[in-house]
């Protein structure tokens, strides 16, 4: 059940363009151990800018 809720939460966040923060941390740990990852807030802001900055072709009709 908790897995289902977690997936639902991830889906809702992905619908508005915010990927999973923990996956990002895992990626940074595994591939860029030398770099400090963004904190949760910086990550959220970076994703917000990336989604709505206009480069993404906007939404559908």
């Amino acid at each position: 059940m908790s897995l289902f809720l977690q997936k639902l939460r991830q889906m809702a966040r992905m619908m508005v363009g915010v990927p999973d923060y923990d996956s990002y941390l895992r990626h940074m740990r595994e591939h860029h151990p030398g770099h400090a990852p963004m904190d949760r807030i910086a990550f959220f802001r970076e994703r917000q800018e990336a989604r709505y900055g206009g480069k993404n072709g906007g939404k559908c009709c």
Partner: protein
Amino acid sequence: MTRHIPWILIAIVGAVALSVVAVSRGETVNALWIVVAAVSSFLVAYRYYALYIARHVMRLDPSRPTPAIRRADGLDYVATDRTVLFGHHFAAIAGAGPLVGPVLAAQMGYLPGTLWIIAGVVLAGAVQDFLILFISMRRDGKSLGELIRMEMGQVAGTIALFGAFMIMVIILAVLALIVVKALAESPWGMFTVAATVPLAMIMGAYTRWIRPGRIGEVSLLGLIGLIAAIVYGQSIAQSPVWGPVFTFTPVQLCWILIGYGAVASVLPVWLLLAPRDYLSTFLKIGAIAALAVGIVIMAPPLKMHAVTQFASGNGPVWAGGLFPFLFITIACGAVSGFHALISSGTTPKLIASEAHAPIIGYGAMLMEAFVAIMALVGASILDPGIYFTMNSPAAVIGKDAASAAAAVTAMGFPISPDLILQTAKDVGEHSIISRAGGAPTLAVAMAEIFSHVIGGPAMKAFWYHFAILFEALFILTAVDAGTRAGRFMLQDLIALAVPGFKDNRSMAPGIVATALTVAAWGFFLYQGVTDPLGGVNTLWPVFGISNQMLAAIALMLGTAVLFRMKRDRFAWVTIVPAAWLLICTLSAGWLKLFSADAKVGFLAHAAKFGAAADRGEVLAPARSMAEMEAIIFNDRVDAGLVAIFLFVVLAVLFFTVRTCLAARKAAAPTAREIPAQLVPAE
């Protein structure tokens, strides 16, 4: 063999339901038959056709690394769970289009629209989305413009990019027009939509400073605010002081929207765009789910005729006969070129395995077709008299209940003036006459369905304004986001002639490009708002033609890629729908340009008004010589626009044929995929 048995049963159920829908005449048909027919067709199509394409045409390879694996960065490129990505993709493709087109198409009866949505999505729309996703996925998630450039050359890419920009302009204009139609002279609706601006800003401040990143929390707060706005909207509308403050004419609203588009698109995204997108996205998904549940619980009978006399043309909602105009009126929901931009946008960068492509590419589009089917059902459960009262232009049915009832009854759909007044009163509006554009009609239908499930007749006015708010909210988000996207497209295009225009360090190019984009859609919006035939009449077909042309372009790209992969013998999968779309859009475009019928052809209309102007005569609906001049000018601009679309699609056709011929001569595959054996980056 046994594994096919459940699917055979589903196919039989679907065939039975479809024949009930198609064959019944005279007796009332329950709306659930349409739903069952659609759902079973979609399931069978997914199980057999989508998997056929996946296995034989594309030869998907689950072991091949996707961009999300190869270029993983935890941000843009993230291998995402299949279900999560399905939600992301569906939320990005489903918008106002599948809700509006089917409502407008209901003037021909529910049968033509139903058949076209089912056949169109299975053979064209879902194939397009799936194929573009596949092509982009094998090329690092590149965008449609870049893909065309890679596979068909620089010139074809630039022409397609220019076409995409013009399509964006028309989409923004037509979406804004729908908002104008829904909010004009409606203080209740206007107040609730206006209230979303400060509400979103409060939400923006909340996610920026108070609790950053708490999307769920802030959306819940926003939802409470929205419901409060709808509830208080009624008292505001009835107040002698505030009622008039929130009552606007269509022209005033047009200018408000243009100003809004210009300002909103340069504000920081966290302040207005992002928080309102949270609200509109979740509300959209929630409303779609609620509509599905509501239709199943209510199981309403269809009141619209299966086929009306307007199938032969001369309909009051939009002009033109079933072929080709039905196939461009229902664009989104059956096949939508715009999806090619989404399928080559964020989705290919997030897909974790090639094996997920069928459910996301093909499956999500089937889901959108289901939304379109529900919109068609919504329009068809209304009394046809109400439907035509709401959707016929004032030039045809007049402005008061008596004239509208008389005119609609004369069309063969009996209705009394009392019923028109009562319906308006039930939903808390002054008038429901001539509210074309789809949104108000759908809102009345949704109010009917929702109030049946929750609240009874007393809740109708609340649900009506809830439905209007939900549609206006995501249209305004699209206007904002679309203006930003249009700005970057335009900067890319201008930079081809003026190097340095893409430079984002100086402010000027961005401001110039934004102003040009707003001016472009604002022009068509103003033209639509002041159009005596209601604007939807003129703009929706142009939008449909442009959207279907983009779809034809995407399918032609698919054809070219299949040829270059040396899979010519499977290319019928894209050639058949591309050819159909070319036939529909080219003939519709041709008719819009050169039809001798002034109701259909822009040039014939201009000639008719030009001849009258030369005689010094003022033709209705113009009231002065200046208005006559404006009508002629608008006709010529529209004709020019359609000519541009025709040129774009014919040019891409030329490059497609050239590419395919060259590919046939080549001995080996020439498609420029990223090779499978390449080791992941890093």
